[in-house]
């Protein structure tokens, strides 16, 4: 993965330099008579420099392996169709999870948000062969029951048994 390493290396250099500059801008409290060896920016600055250095090594190594040729295809994927399906599954998962945790939770009641998320997740990831072999109503009922049960059990378990506040 020389190309990915090359890009990561550049990103790490940027991150390290950014952290170093932020650290240098941190106060030294000299007017308060603070010992100069305790300044808040000392360790983050060192870490920034080290990360930039490690990023530099990664970049150089990746460049040596041809990673600088940004337009070149990384690898020849043996099964492009499967790769496409992988991306599809990943994007659906991302959309559902981020939509639930970052959007629904806190906006609508927790059991409702959880039930909706569970129902959509189960239905969208039910394998194709199951849609063909098992009657539609059965798949839907099972999904609704699992979604409802999870929402109820998690709510009761956290709020009543473990006395934890829900979002």
């Amino acid at each position: 993965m020389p190309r990915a390493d090359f890009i990561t290396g550049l990103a790490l250099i940027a991150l390290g330099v950014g952290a170093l500059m932020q650290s240098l801008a941190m106060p030294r409290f000299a007017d308060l008579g603070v010992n100069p060896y305790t300044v808040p920016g000392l360790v983050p600055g060192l870490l920034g420099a080290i990360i930039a250095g490690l990023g530099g090594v990664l970049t150089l190594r990746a460049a040596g392996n041809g990673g600088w040729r940004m337009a070149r295809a990384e690898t020849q994927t043996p099964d492009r169709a499967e790769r496409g399906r992988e991306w599809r599954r990943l994007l659906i998962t991302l959309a559902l999870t981020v939509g639930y945790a970052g959007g629904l939770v806190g906006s609508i009641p927790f059991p409702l948000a959880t039930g909706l998320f569970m129902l959509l997740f189960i239905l969208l990831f039910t394998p194709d062969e199951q849609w063909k072999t098992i009657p539609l109503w059965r798949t839907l009922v099972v999904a609704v029951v699992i979604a409802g049960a999870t929402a109820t059990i998690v709510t009761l378990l956290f709020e009543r048994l473990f006395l934890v506040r829900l979002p």
Partner: protein
Amino acid sequence: MLENLASFGGALAGFLTPEALFATLWATFVGICVGMMPGLTATLGVALMTTLTFRMAAGDAILILICMYVGAIYGGSRSAILLNMPGTPASAATTLDGFPLARSGQAGHAMATATSGSVLGSLIGMICLAIFAPWLAEFALDFGAYEFFWLAVFGIVISGHLTALDDPLKGWIAGFLGLLVAMVGQEGIHAYERFSFGNSDLAGGIGLLPALVGAFGFAEILSVMKNRPYRVVADAVDSVIPKVREVLSYWRTIIRSGLIGTTMGLVPGVGEDMGAWVSYAAARRASKERKKFGKGSLEGLMSAETGNSAAVPGAIIPVLTLAVPGSAPAAVLLAAMYIHGVRPGPLIMIEFPSFVFEVVAMILLASLAILLYGILLTKPLLRVLAVPREKLMPVVFVLCTVGSFAIASRTFDIWVMLAFGLIGFVLREMKYPMAPLVLGIVLGDILDKSLRRGLVLSDGDPAPFFTRPISLVLWLAVAVTIAMSIPVVRAAVTRGVGSAMHALGVRKKQEANE
């Protein structure tokens, strides 16, 4: 010694109550289920359980977390044997012989061997914990700011090196990124808000638990859902009861693997998977049946399972005595101890003298619980593997969301979980290990305070960092580890050692002739 034994007896007696025994049984059961499911790791299990138990009494909560930890590492062997997929990274070496045994119709026999290896490994680690933790705590009283600074650096360097043997650079990058993450928020000396950019949530720092739940939970969910669904490819039709005579015939392998596993657990941030791999490699070198290794060797399976389970108590030793975790789940355990008011570190035997032996008793109870489940419930428990991922993973994600929020009731922590999940997923896809990242987040504060305190004590003179005896050993270890991972240096050292050995051999031959 007798005093320690009495403390252990007292601690064990304290847990022989119906409530504690019930907690042991259900927490170990949940741990085994978590370990069995590919995508759910011991780290995630312990982290989620920490969020559930943080309102409980310290003793009860830590008992539940240790049972979860021991159970999850053992549970990983089930899927390693039946699916050829390690349930947790610690069980990767188990697949090498466990799966071929299952394919040849000996899945039950393999699981019985894994059960006995895990129980005995835990017990060996437990004995080492009882013996060495008090001794190490006393030794650690000599540690000052200089030593703790190097210990933190050593942890990052060795963890980065050993968890990414093919490419230590990526391990170190992960470790230093973890240290940088730990710098976010108010620092401990002047209360200055670093990298907060005026955001009050960032000023509070990045919580370890939401970060871990993201890196080990959400990231795993993304990986599992991205890949094709797994299938159970073998079934246990034969007996799952361990045969005592057969187990005893491997006593050398068991003791060796137990000691290696405990030692690997002791090394900061290395943990159970290396415990298993190193034990497996040592067993193969010493075995008379080494040709069978990788093709269904019971000895190979025994060594891997003994090694990973022994690493659990091993990883807890530095948690208790140095406040430095030996593995990722141990890092969560360390955080949980702080939450419950226990302060691990060199003063543990002074401030909480009975706590070390309480932990020893907890490991014993968890080991007995896995033996019980291994004998009685192996076959029914395998049904957990039949739960389809599209029904399991959303439940896990709901728990990740609630768990991230639970400790501090901050919505910000849910965003931390999501962010670390995405970062963890990308890093894992690019072959960066997660353990050094976790270790970095844990050790960041120690490194920061120790460096600055050390410099104040020496008035800016860096010499004590390099000349005090323990510091000297630690920085030399760091330097050698880094140097030996540079191919040119490694090749030169190997050549040098080779020619020196050759010259020594020639000289001895000449002396013998004379």
